């Protein structure tokens, strides 16, 4: 079981959290102005990173907040957790969608 460092509550066991998929995917401001391809990419296309991956978590059975994390998918070690709206910590090897 992972230990996840909620930016609001501190380190807690994985049981308290719900995974929220890839991070830093913004919903288009005006969906009606997107092409079908752009909309499809927003809806469905996700990276499948081997290495450092930016992902969303929700402290569902704690404070209820969504936040972001950088996790190495090869080791399951977290490099950082940070609040929604914040950029990934500088110096991290974070890469989101290409």
């Amino acid at each position, binding site marked *: *079981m*992972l*230990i996840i460092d909620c930016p609001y509550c501190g380190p807690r066991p994985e049981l308290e959290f*719900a995974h*929220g998929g890839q991070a830093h995917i*913004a*919903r*288009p401001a*005006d*969906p*009606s102005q*997107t092409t*079908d391809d752009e*909309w499809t990419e*927003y*809806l*469905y296309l996700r990276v499948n990173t081997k290495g450092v991956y930016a992902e*969303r978590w*929700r402290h*569902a059975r704690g404070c*209820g*907040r*969504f936040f972001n994390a950088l996790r190495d998918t*090869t*080791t*399951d*070690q977290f490099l950082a957790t940070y609040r*929604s*709206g914040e950029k990934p910590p500088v110096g991290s090897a974070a890469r989101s969608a290409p």
Partner: protein
Amino acid sequence: MTEFRTERGGRVDRSRVLRFTFDGRAYTGFAGDTLASALLANGVQLLGRSFKYHRPRGLLAAGSEEPNALVTVIRDAARRTPNVRATTVELYDGLVAESQNRWPSLSFDLGAINNLLSPVLPAGFYNKTFMWPRSAWFALYEPRIRAAAGLGVAPTLPDPDRYAQRYAHCEVLVVGAGPAGLAAATAAAATGARVILCDEQAELGGALLAEPDTEIDGRPAGDWLAATVAALRANPRVTLLARTTAFGYFPHNNVGLVERLTDHLESPPAALPRERLWQVRAREVVLATGAIERPLPFPGNDRPGVMLAGAARTYLHRFGVRVGRRAVVVAGCDAAFQAAVELSRAGVAIAVIADVRAPGQVAGPGEQAARAAGLAVETNATVLGTRGRLRVSQVLLGRVGPDGAVTPGASHACDVVLMSGGYTPSVHLHSQSRGKLAYDDALGAFVPAAPAERTRSAGMARGVAGLAAGLDDGAAAGAAAAGAHAATHRHSSRGLDGGLAGRPGAPPQPAALVPPAKAFVDFQNDVTTRDLALARREGFESIEHIKRYTTTGMATDQGKTSGLNALAIVASESERRVPEVGLTTFRMPFTPVTFGSLAGVARGDAFDPVRRTPSHAWAAARGAVFEDVGLWKRARYFPVNGEDMHAAVNRECLAVRRGVGMFDASTLGKIEVVGKDAATFLNRLYINNWSNLGVQRSRYGILLRDDGFVYDDGVIARLAEDRFHVTTTTGGAARVFAMMEDFLQTEWTDLSVWITSTTEQWAVVAVQGPRARDVLARLVTDVDLSAAALPHMAVARGRIAGVPMLLFRVSFSGELGFEVNVPADYGAEVWAAIHEAGREFGITPYGTEAMHVLRAEKGYIIVGQDTDGTMTPDDAAVAWAIGKQKPDFVGKRSLERPTMKHPQRKQLVGLETLDPRIVLEEGAQIVATRDQRPPMKMIGHVTSSYHSAVLGRSIALGVVAGGRARSGETLYVPMPGGDIPVKVVSPVFYDREGARLNG
């Protein structure tokens, strides 16, 4: 006392004689024996039959790596534990054990016919032979193979034992209490760290338990062991766990341990759980898991009596048991010579030591000792075969010439063959933790490399051979794990030392000389050198594929005794080096774990939480039949006078249509949405327009995901300009709440909105039927219930039976209906009051089944039943709810995609069977024409189907491609009894005009 038990020595208590039976025969052993050592002491070597060929098998090892001696231990009918290794079963008085995988008896097993058939049972035999037809595999072949090749039989009664679970935290977890582990725990504890030290065996000590002649720091190893364990035990910050297996290494240094508390006891106290699962979270882990001796793959190496040399030492030194009278020792590493010397000293005749190592080997201390003792050693030797039906009786040796040619040599009579191919570090846990492995050429084995967790290996687990070196390595690892500098103390030792390196896969058999006997690599799965060679010839390259094809290293072995030999043979077949072949994944558990320990208390009533509605006790007292809806218990129907479900549901439905019924709708999800932007939020989220919804009014809302498919639905009421009461489906409450939070927190942070789950705050009683108003009028005096003052979809606040109430004029039955919301604590009271007030109107409590029929008669969908995550609002016939003027809502953009508007999408329709008595099966497929042959072209399926009492016929909802345009067409539902013709109709079967709703 048998001739196989020594006069003295070992850690058994000769004053405590224990009786036990094996396959019905009575034997005795001593306290401290395992079932294996006690059977060996009685001269019993035949312990089982192999999995595939039913070959007779004896003990190979002395520890948990034993692949052959799987037995069933029986306490009573419910306590039959199959597939336990005889080497790990501690003897107690009265123990009953049985062998497995034989019929009718161990010495005469009809299944052994497979052994004679072995030329036609090669690697991949199951895959090749039983492939077609597919259905026969499941129906015919697979059960027969299981029955013929089955391991032990699980008990059929519920497990009567208790299993405990606990969490623990420590700075340093040390796995393995051999010399390195003890030194690590001692060094870590010296820093004041909290230390947990666990070991799978009954006694802490590991290899030291079988080293009576060894000295550590100038005193006997046994004394050092006792003093070290006593010091650790006296330290309150140290937890010592014997009989505890670290079976799984989970992320972030979360290690799963299973502690066995009662299996070794003659009469387990009722208060003790049988096992305890520990979930340890350690800051640092030290893996001092030691090494496992490798067998040698020579022909006939699986006969009972052929065992690991180190195991023979363990039986001698720890249990005081001589494994036989006369031994042939096959030495693939120096340690085998040491075993020969010590067994010889204990009175076992050593016929010969066959040195099968590569020529030119430097004589190690073991070899020197053997020569000094005058034991016969044959160098450049190889083993050509063994003889003996139920026990080895003869070994035929060969001589390897300088050119590699093998000439037959002498044969030696014996009753035991001791082999050692070197030692393989136990890297299972390191590998489970995703740590890398590196091949150590000198050792001929993989050792831990870069870790992925905060873990380090120590001692023989990382290839550090020799007692003093292992102790120093353990101490250094323990100190470093506790954050201290490496211990300065250097251990000294005399006795056990080095010589553990061997060549995996040795001795290679020149192909021309391989006799028809088999050289087994994986004893448990009956995989031979020839199977591995065959797999290579058939084109399997990847070791992962070869593992699956030949089954080598599968089941409980997990490569413990077979792994490296299999790799080495594949490497040699493909002319690669071992590290180039790679490794298969080490999977948890290290040794089998009971389901009981994993389940813990989560069984029966404690398996899952149960949610009960406020009317639960009332309904239960009246004999309601409940169904599970998520975690909720919901009353399904209320039978009276012995009615069956059909009769009860018909009665309940007619009561609602003709009089009045009451229904507990408390399970509906409820979310309060509050804030100055609450209406904007709901506009962006739901497909409907909420801006024009007046206060004290409600509306049926539909929620999509952004992919445009229906996600949830429910009535939403506006309680104030800035306050909405949102209801969701019973199952959707949590996910809708999470979706709202997601958008509020991460997309629409500009909105001033707060949401609160209020599902459990409100009890909801639906009162439905033409007489609903009459019933409520008895209890509600401060709300005008008239149709003019409180029309359909209106909301009012008031009191019912003195309790504050939020009253919705809504209907999920199509009748005049109200939903009474009261604080949950008053739910039972208000439910009873409504029932009492409705008595004179014949009020009828109804359950979820009648609710389903009533809504289907009206064509109201249930999200998740009539929709399946691929239906648009138009598909589900609720597109009328879309707020057409809204610039956006979740899912709107997706509805513009061409495929979402395709006229042949599956659309919700009503279905009427031509024969009104036939109730279709939900989930049944729909086809356009009759008498099709499979594969038929399916154009839809039935989603809801019931008998409608008020209509006197069956009704159904379904989804059909282009369904609405097919209105009036006859389609077919193919069933085993023939095609059932159905007519496509409107999904609204009853009161199409909706007059009753507005009554």
